[in-house]
């Protein structure tokens, strides 16, 4: 199951601080009359690497999309880095510019070059001068190992490369928190590894990360907490070793047996 992770992960900089990065209290969300998220309570500290797992339709993507308000919650509180998410657009924009997000389908801007994808938000949201934004972007593109593709368009890159550009694009905003919404689910097996490697490097530098993923090898190697969701609620959360070796709820056991069975 962990064939994608074949290197030693350096834990020396992964330190969880006392500072709260995200605080979710009694959060509920409905799609029409369908209760997708029920009484979610979750506190994430700075430096935590959290993996959210669960069957499809369990609300895990919806949960992390609530954290930067791509989805609206109808009850409860979400406080991100000290800013409460309400309908106040100023707060929403503030949170969004501090929280990076990586999508399943990359969502790069196809009409802009890789470099322009990376510099767009810094220039227009952070008001960074163009030259400086380009330098920063090149640094991050080097970090995800595709500086030589900077002037190509996303459509000319492979899926794995596109996803790494998407990660670089988020990092260019110097986010405090990174959200990953099934970042490897749309990729060929060969490309999953290159994206996971990038994510591991990010974790090694101490980034606060919440990942919705089915890569259990990644969860074991990197996460400090695994959360299991089912039917819109958090069913179990624990350290990876406890979660995988000693699951408590029957639902978790069933899920793990299905996902690790083959």
């Amino acid at each position, binding site marked *: 199951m962990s064939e994608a992770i074949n290197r030693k992960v350096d834990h020396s900089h992964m330190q969880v601080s006392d500072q709260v990065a995200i605080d979710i209290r009694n959060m509920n969300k409905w799609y029409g009359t369908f209760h997708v998220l029920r009484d979610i309570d979750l506190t994430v500290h700075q430096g935590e690497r959290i993996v959210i797992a669960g069957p499809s339709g369990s609300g895990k993507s919806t949960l992390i999309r609530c954290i930067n308000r791509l989805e609206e919650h109808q009850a409860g509180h979400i406080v991100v880095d000290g800013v409460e998410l309400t309908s106040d657009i100023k707060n929403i924009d*503030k949170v969004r510019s501090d929280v990076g997000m990586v999508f399943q389908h990359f969502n790069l801007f*196809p009409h802009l070059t890789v470099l322009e994808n990376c510099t*767009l938000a810094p220039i227009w949201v952070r008001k960074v001068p163009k030259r400086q934004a380009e330098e920063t972007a090149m640094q991050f593109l080097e970090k995800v190992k595709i500086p030589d593709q900077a002037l190509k368009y996303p459509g000319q890159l492979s899926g794995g490369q596109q996803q790494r550009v998407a990660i670089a694009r988020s990092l260019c905003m110097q986010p405090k928190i990174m959200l990953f919404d099934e970042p490897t689910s749309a990729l060929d097996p060969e490309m999953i590894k290159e994206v996971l490697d990038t994510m591991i490097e990010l974790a090694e530098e101490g980034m606060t990360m919440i990942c919705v993923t089915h890569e259990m090898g990644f969860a074991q190697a990197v996460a400090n907490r695994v959360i299991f969701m089912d039917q819109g609620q958090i069913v179990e959360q624990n350290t990876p070793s406890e979660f995988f070796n000693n699951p408590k709820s029957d639902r978790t056991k069933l899920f793990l047996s299905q996902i690790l069975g083959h």
Partner: protein
Amino acid sequence: MSDTHAQTVPFVRDTMLPAAQPPDNQAGAVRWLRENLFAGPVNSVLTIAGILIIFFLVTHFWDWFAHSVWNASSLSECREIISATWGPDARGACFAVIRERWNQLTFGFYPSELYWRPTMTFGLQMIALAPVLFATALVIRRTVLVITAVVTLAAMIALGSPMIWLVFAAIAFAGGIYASERNVRWLVPVALIYPLAGIWFLWGGSLWTPIFILVGPALGWVAWRILGKRLPGVGMFAAILVTILFWMILAGDAANDAQNLIPMSIESVRSDRFGGFLLSVTIGVAGIALSLPIGIVLALARQSDMFLIKSLSVMFIEFIRGVPLITLLFVASLLLNYFLPPGTTFDIILRVIIMVTIFAAAYMAEVIRGGLAALPRGQYEAADALGLDYWKAQRLIVLPQALKISIPGIVSTFIGMFKDTVLVTFVGLYDPLKSMPDAIRANIEWKGIYWEPFIFVGAIFFIICFAMSRYSMYLERRLQRDHK
């Protein structure tokens, strides 16, 4: 893999095969003919039928074109020349009418000593269009501008332009080409101001009028600078209010006073003297330039989450699309006068431009809405997730892609609108297709000449519309960002 065949048992290729030429009948002209003209019995029959139809059409009309007369002063003279040259029963076209009356078909009743003015207007227009149409293609821009400059200046000389305006146009072209070579963005302000300059060149009158029209938005901008920093909504509203109030209350008198103080004017030409292609192109260019931005705003409004804005936009679009253009033109020419205060003179061409514009804008809005709908949801989400606000997301992410998708539809709307400009014949304007040839036929010398003006006008329309269509294909190719 239990029942593996003998020939699939372990095999290792030790030499890679080189690429080979395709068989002869699978390449070149033979293949093209086989695939495109004679792919099967039905295809072959259709090909032969098509060739026969073309053959009959060409042989039927060939004599008429071959016997055409380009030099005569009346239709009867044409007929005499044809029967003298080709025999008493010969038929032939009398294109002499085009040669005799090209100026009317082109300029309508515009004073002939001022023909150079529309020529200069539409020539210089290319400088204003360069940063819009050919923003990223230096070589094409250079070619287009140089050719336009040479043709325009030559035409102005031929039409007897005064020296001072010839010098002015030459300097403008030189400046435009220089800016286009150095940095085409310098021409963007020209693109914004040129519509006013163009109106002044065409209609003439006091130079102070366009200047004071420009002062309005300038004051509005000042109001926005003062208020907009803290209260963007109020600032925007104040800017629009200041601009409109200035235009309504002060601009006219101020322009008159300035004119009395320092006279600066060129001979003015009334709207009823516009006609022919001058009229069509004027209405068409104005309609194209105005209907795109209005269409974008309407499309965005229709996609808006705000109920009132959305409903207003839907009502406007559905109403305008549900009414024939001619109805709107009649409203422009007849009804509008009833609603306006007595004594207001509201130029007929301006009224027609407004109606044609809102008609095209309603269609444009639907075309662009299609482009907006074709964008994957993820693009909006990615823009949101990066912290871009609504307007920045629209401007930087959504519209560039949506407009690119909509290019064929947008250009179709432009082409349709340009052709519809001939409908102004119904409100008494001299369009090139109906009213202008009627006026020519009203003359005893050309009574009864029908086909030749139609063919000429059709050919000109075809050239302009075909150019637009080719441009849209060029643009699509240029904006293509992936391998297809």
